[in-house]
């Protein structure tokens, strides 16, 4: 079992700004100590409420982007979708309020050494961590295409500054209110003829579909999963997924510490929510 990165810290972070972006909230946090060490794909875990809160579990958010230095010291930006009471509370924080933040957490997207042709696919606000990834890939002279899909236009997260990080951006909405009408998987040639690597972040079903497309095209897919977490730091064992290792053995791995980014083909997508037969430590 792994520990955490030595760069992980817990800090009281001031909210620098909170802007509404479609259906989401874009929060910028003053987070020196976290910003300098964060890599694309990492996340932060934020506690909800004050010292007398009735909501004890941390909420985890992929890091959208960071600035190591600036007028507020290092800053970390996240995109919050107000799903429930906890994420709504975080989404409502005003500038100068403080949030208790642990980060950076989780593994990062792996970046090939040589220039590649990359396809980045985001579902809803799952696009958030992909823009910093795109920036990094471009610095390595890679070609970056991005596809984002959501149910409606207000759930497409594609900021103007983010668009500059990609060579081409394709958008699909299920109601046709932005981009083409349909799903994100309709946006690209499933043969992935001109693609060397796929990166994806979004709902599990989207990641499974993308893994299948990429696998049949013989292209690796790195998938950032969304599994419900209680602590985000590897203590509680609630965010486990069945993952097949290079030794062929399936293990229940924590998506917070061993993930959230997994090789798509290693995730036993059809078996999520079960302990597949033969899993390491499964009932005999």
């Amino acid at each position, binding site marked *: *079992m*792994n*520990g*955490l*990165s*030595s760069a*992980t810290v*817990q800090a009281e972070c001031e909210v620098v700004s909170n802007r509404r972006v479609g259906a989401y909230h874009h929060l910028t946090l003053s987070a020196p100590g976290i910003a300098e060490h964060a890599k694309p794909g990492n996340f932060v875990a934020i*506690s909800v409420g004050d*010292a007398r*809160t*009735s*909501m*004890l*579990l*941390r909420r985890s958010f992929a890091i959208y982007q960071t600035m190591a230095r600036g007028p507020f010291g290092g800053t970390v930006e996240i995109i919050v979708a107000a799903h429930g009471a*906890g994420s709504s509370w975080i989404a409502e924080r005003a500038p100068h309020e403080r949030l*208790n933040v*642990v980060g950076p957490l989780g593994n990062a997207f792996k970046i090939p050494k040589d220039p590649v042709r990359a396809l980045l696919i985001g579902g809803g606000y799952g696009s958030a961590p992909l823009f910093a990834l795109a920036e990094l890939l471009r610095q390595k002279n890679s070609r970056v295409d991005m596809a984002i899909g959501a149910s409606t236009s207000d759930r497409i997260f594609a900021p103007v500054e983010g668009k500059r990080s990609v060579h081409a951006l394709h958008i699909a909405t299920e109601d046709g209110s932005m981009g083409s009408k349909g799903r994100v998987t309709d946006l690209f040639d499933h043969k992935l003829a001109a693609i060397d690597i796929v990166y994806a972040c979004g709902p599990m079903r989207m990641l499974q579909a993308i893994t299948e497309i990429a696998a049949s095209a013989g292209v690796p897919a790195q998938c950032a999963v969304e*599994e*419900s977490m*209680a*602590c985000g*730091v*590897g*203590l*509680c*064992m*609630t*965010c*486990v*997924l069945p993952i097949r290792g290079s030794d062929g053995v399936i*293990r*229940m791995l924590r998506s917070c*510490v061993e993930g959230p980014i997994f090789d798509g083909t290693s995730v036993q997508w059809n078996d*999520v*929510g*079960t*302990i597949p037969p033969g*899993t*390491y*430590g*499964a*009932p*005999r």
Partner: protein
Amino acid sequence: MNRAEVDMRTQIGNVVFKNPIFTASGCAANGKELSTFFPLDSIGAVVTKSVMTHPRAGRPTPRMAETPSGMLNAIGLQGPGIETFLKEDLPWLHQHGASTIVSIAGESVEEFAALSRKVRNAPGVCALEVNISCPNVENRGLVFACDPRSARDVIEAVKRSVGSTLPIIAKLSPDVTDIVSIAEEVVAAGADALAMINTLLGMVINLDTMRPHLANKTGGLSGPAIRPVAVRAIYQVHRALPKVPIVGMGGVLTGADALELILAGARGISVGTATFHDPSAPIRILGELEKLLHERGFTRFSDAVGYAHREGE
């Protein structure tokens, strides 16, 4: 405040711990992650996740639901198994200076006995927690701590294996009619101390699926929601068995919460669910507790243990 003014040492069986703040089994993994947030040798002890004989994959997901001031979990004792634990996790804790209380869980009396034999001679173990009260086993009939006779059988077998080499701490369930009678049984069987309380069995129904939210259907309820139950159980058992050390747990989120359990009779405090909320909770609570004891005029932690039971005034 001068922190040196309160002697925070505490004793469980024949072992002295530098202070009474411990982690709780199942809430600290095996220590590595928490060491990112504070030095493990700064708290009284790390209580490791209950380990079984074989590696264990645990329960399917969803394993967790947030509840008002608490959470429900059904992890199902996912873990590496005793051999890997003794080869990798325990030596790591030992190297990092942690006082370690190893928690074991078995599905039979024999399994508990065999596990305790393996732990007995391992370097770096301060005490043995015998988890006879995990609510997430396949068969609720296996919750040994819900039946006085089963509870006694397990502790007797462990006592035969361990003798007096390690203090035996029996972890009790609050899901019983009379926790005092269970406590008396396990103490008579050879337990040197008691850990209480384990989680309470609960259920959450998901209104979207209109089915139980957890894959296991039921789960263990923890967090501040159960604290009054812990205070009551500790108070009752300390009253009946004032000489038996109690490691108290159940929703301790602050030093004030810890003090409440201590006044009821706890000689050690395990910080559990609070570490999910705040991974620095154990060290923060230690500081808060010291301050509260000092403010109340205590110079020794041990003087506060069970203070709520005092006569007169």
